[in-house]
């Protein structure tokens, strides 16, 4: 009974927030150990992965070598275009500006063992680092997820593949609009597409910003299949994330409050 009363007392202290400094201290002290353990697991996983796919890797290597040759020639072409573009910009006096003037916060990713679907992660930055609920997780121009819970030194974020995720989206090629939802933590689904709208496999889907939650122009996924049911008034599309989300080690937090 003594331990039950102690645990109840700790719970009350936890609810009142008295244990917040202790939590912050423990999370800060334990983070280097967690990082070491995480990278040990990543190395073990990579080693196992390499051994099981060694033949595939050889084939892939040959293909990549071919691809690299064609990409090199493409880069040369693009460099020429870029030079031309710079010249035209100078001529038109257009100033280059960054889309994001906000300071990004670099964070390490930790898996969330409480999440059975693998659709949420912890990041090692919290309110002390300026992180707030609603901030976005990004990597280059890819949207990774959204912060949903914040403590002093750690935050919980849902990934774009989470079933709790939804964002207004648009097809980069055809401007077809829809709503992108997380789908069982593996894929994404673009819904509410009008039947006459143009969308095909391979199209890049980006956030449109029309939901007022996500900034426009962030990549969400690539169309895998378009699902058309004659009985349904609207069609949908199955997307695969453009980024390998499950292997992410570092992300940037984009503060939305600012």
């Amino acid at each position, binding site marked *: *009974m003594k*331990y*039950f009363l*102690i*645990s*109840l007392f*700790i*719970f*009350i*202290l*936890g*609810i009142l927030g008295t*244990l917040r400094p*202790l*939590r912050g201290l*423990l*999370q800060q002290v*334990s983070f280097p*150990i*967690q*990082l070491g*353990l*995480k990278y*040990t*697991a*990543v190395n*073990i*996983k990579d080693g196992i992965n390499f051994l099981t796919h060694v033949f595939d890797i050889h084939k892939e290597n040959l293909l990549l070598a071919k691809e690299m040759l064609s990409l090199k020639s493409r880069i040369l072409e693009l460099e020429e275009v870029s030079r031309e573009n710079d010249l035209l910009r100078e001529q038109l006096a257009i100033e280059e500006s960054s889309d994001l003037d906000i300071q990004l916060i670099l964070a390490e990713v*930790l*898996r*969330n*063992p*409480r*999440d*059975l*679907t*693998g*659709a*949420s992660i*912890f990041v090692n930055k919290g309110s002390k680092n300026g992180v707030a609920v609603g901030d976005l997780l990004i990597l280059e121009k890819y949207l990774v997820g959204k912060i949903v*819970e*914040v*403590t002093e030194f*750690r*935050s*919980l974020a849902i990934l774009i593949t989470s*079933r*709790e995720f939804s964002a207004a989206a648009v097809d980069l090629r055809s401007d077809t609009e829809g709503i992108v939802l997380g789908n*069982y*933590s593996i894929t994404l689904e673009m819904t509410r597409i009008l039947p006459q709208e143009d969308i095909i496999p391979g199209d890049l889907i980006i956030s449109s910003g029309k939901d007022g939650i996500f900034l426009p122009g962030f990549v969400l996924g690539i169309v895998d299949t378009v699902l058309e049911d004659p009985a349904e008034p609207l069609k949908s599309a199955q997307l695969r994330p453009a980024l390998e989300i*499950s292997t992410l080690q570092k992300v940037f937090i984009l503060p939305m409050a600012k």
Partner: protein
Amino acid sequence: MKKFGGLFFANLILVLIQQAFFGELFGLGYTPHIALALTFALFVTVEMETTLLSGLLCGVLTDLLGTGPVGLSAVFCVSYLLFVAYIKKRFIKGAVVNIIAFVAFSCLYDLLGSFSSVTVVFNVILVRALLGLISLGVFYFIIQRFLDEKYSL
């Protein structure tokens, strides 16, 4: 104090391994509750006082390293251990009760943890419980060996 220190560090290391190592290695939530497995292995091998202390530390440390309310897991764990102890005392005896109790607790704990989430994946919950059960067996073996050596001296 020595017992508290030992259990504190054992639970801390296990919670860290559970979160950072197994979380990354197994992915998709297939992470066994190894800290809980230690508590349930102690339940079979040592006295109730040590088991409850381990359960309390396991719950508090799990909550402190997460983002939810601190102490909720500890209350849940300690009350469950007391409930199982009562069942064992009044109704059924034997280690099999501990095995069933562990699997049930692991599943219940995951189900409660999934309340905030939209998706509850039952096969993942079951796999986690079974992996935890294997860990419990390993811990039981280690503790038994440790106790044998201690008493043979």
